[in-house]
């Protein structure tokens, strides 16, 4: 078992009569990238902000490297780096001033190397209000990691970023992970979670609905593989035609889409059927169940219960 970095036990948080988080528990270990995934209002940000010491839990306990975020906030601040969901900075602070100011409060020299790395050097004299949303997020991230914190909390880190910035951020996260940084991120972005996280907790109405690696979560679903087929003629249009392993079939944008529990025999039978009918295969795509599919299943199950 790797070193325990974050320990959340029976954590609850209420706002008035609304229970935002309801007795959740999870652990994160050193060097892990852990994702908190969930629809709006699921409790992701509340959980992150409680770990960051911005909110006081109503029940349970939270520890970040053994530190209580509420009562040991001074100890906590050098252990964590935080990119908040909204990049709260004074409108007129310049990029280099922001770096210098927050580094000064952490007792370190300004990190111009990070400004360079995150593509902010050219904008170092620009005021925060003059930056695009993506650049504002990058500046928040640069400040969050400037003091080399062992734990990094990222709330919607790629929101507002263009594709190259997003790729660069993921690369940076991997590098930080290699150096031993533990990263906890809250996001809506399924592709990001699949690509970057080691483990995920799916939150639904303040409770953990599922937890595990993206692969484990996906495998625990209905396991239906999507086979999309587009043919020149109409050999597959006959509703009476069935194939082995197929549990559901739909027709969408000229594609026959089959959901199969046994993809090999399904594909073989489809190709054989097309050849038998003297039709021509134009396109065939096989897509394994994605985390997004599994997430939607969990949300649907949660809403039905």
């Amino acid at each position, binding site marked *: 078992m790797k070193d325990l970095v974050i320990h959340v036990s029976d954590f609850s948080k209420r*706002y008035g009569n609304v229970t935002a988080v309801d007795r959740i528990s999870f652990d994160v270990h050193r060097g892990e990238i852990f994702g908190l995934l969930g629809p709006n209002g699921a409790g992701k940000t509340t959980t992150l902000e409680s770990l*960051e*010491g*911005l*909110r*006081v839990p109503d029940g349970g306990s939270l520890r970040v490297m053994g530190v209580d975020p509420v009562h040991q*906030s*001074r100890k906590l*601040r*050098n252990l*964590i780096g*935080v990119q*908040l969901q*909204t*990049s*709260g*900075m*004074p409108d*007129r*602070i310049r990029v280099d*001033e922001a770096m*210098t*100011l*927050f580094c*000064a*409060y*952490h*007792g370190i020299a300004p990190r111009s190397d990070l400004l360079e790395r995150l593509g902010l050097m050219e904008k170092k004299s620009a*005021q925060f209000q003059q930056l695009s949303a993506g650049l504002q997020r990058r500046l*928040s991230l640069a*400040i969050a990691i400037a003091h080399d914190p062992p734990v990094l909390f990222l709330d919607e880190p790629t929101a507002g970023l263009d594709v190259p910035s997003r790729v660069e951020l993921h690369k940076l996260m991997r590098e930080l992970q290699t150096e031993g940084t533990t990263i906890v991120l809250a996001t809506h972005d399924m592709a990001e979670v699949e690509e970057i996280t080691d483990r995920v907790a799916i939150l639904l109405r303040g409770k953990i609905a599922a937890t595990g690696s993206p692969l484990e979560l996906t495998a625990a679903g209905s396991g239906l593989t999507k086979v999309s087929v587009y043919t020149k003629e109409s050999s597959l249009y006959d509703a009476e035609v069935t194939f082995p392993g197929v549990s559901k079939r739909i027709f969408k944008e000229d594609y026959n889409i089959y959901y199969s529990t046994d993809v090999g025999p399904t594909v073989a039978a489809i190709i054989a059927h097309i050849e038998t009918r003297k039709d021509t295969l134009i396109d065939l795509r096989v897509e394994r169940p994605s985390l997004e599919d599994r997430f939607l299943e969990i949300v649907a199950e949660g809403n039905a219960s």
Partner: protein
Amino acid sequence: MNAFVYHFQFEFRSSIRNRAKLVVNYLLPIGLYALMGPIMGPVIPGFREIMIPAMVGVAIMATTTLTLPEPLVTAREAGIFRSYKINGVPAFSILVIPALTTVIHTLAVAVIICATAPLFFKAALPVNWPGFIVTILVMLFASAGLGVLISVVSPSSQVALLMSNIVFIPSMVLSGMTGLPNSLLPAAIRKASQIFPATHGMNAFRAISQGLPADFNPAGSLVLLVMSGVLSFMLAVYLFNWDRHNVTRRGHPLLGLIVLLPYVVGMFVLS
């Protein structure tokens, strides 16, 4: 200490970059001075003798109680204090640094008034410059503390503006800043006016700076202003809230009324 100094430098530079804030810090008090000077000077007997401290007092009240609270409330609402908390910026710095910035701008306005009022309005210069400067600094300390406290206890910028005006408008009318002698007020209102720092500031200015008769003990006024300033900053730090959602404030905002205690005591003690 380095962080505090750097934070102050940034805040000061930022206040100069912010044209709206510059206008409010300079144009409002100087505008009031430019408006009141030519009107009050000829109309109200003796106004020229008290004009410089009165206009400086108006500037102090305008910059500290009217313009200081709102940006602090807005910053809290925008989540800036949350970033500060995460990065270890103490509540003390968040509250004191904008107050210091305001003090510097107000002192600049005071210099402009002192330099121009004798030329344009035949205003009398202070007879006791050290006393004048001490009174300015003490009044700035008390009213900046009050402005900061207003920002902390106000749940929104609208409420902050309302509270600022509740302090500013009666201060203007009842403290003697407009040139109307305090002695002309009915006894009960004259007594009630002692609840405002501006009344004590003007009392100290009249006696200590201008050598005019005081309405009540001017040294006592300075002591009350210092006590109130200390209480204001202490209460502001104690009641400070990092964000609008945070319910961990250490006491009810009404505790802020404790700041009036020295003035209430002064009503019974000073004569």
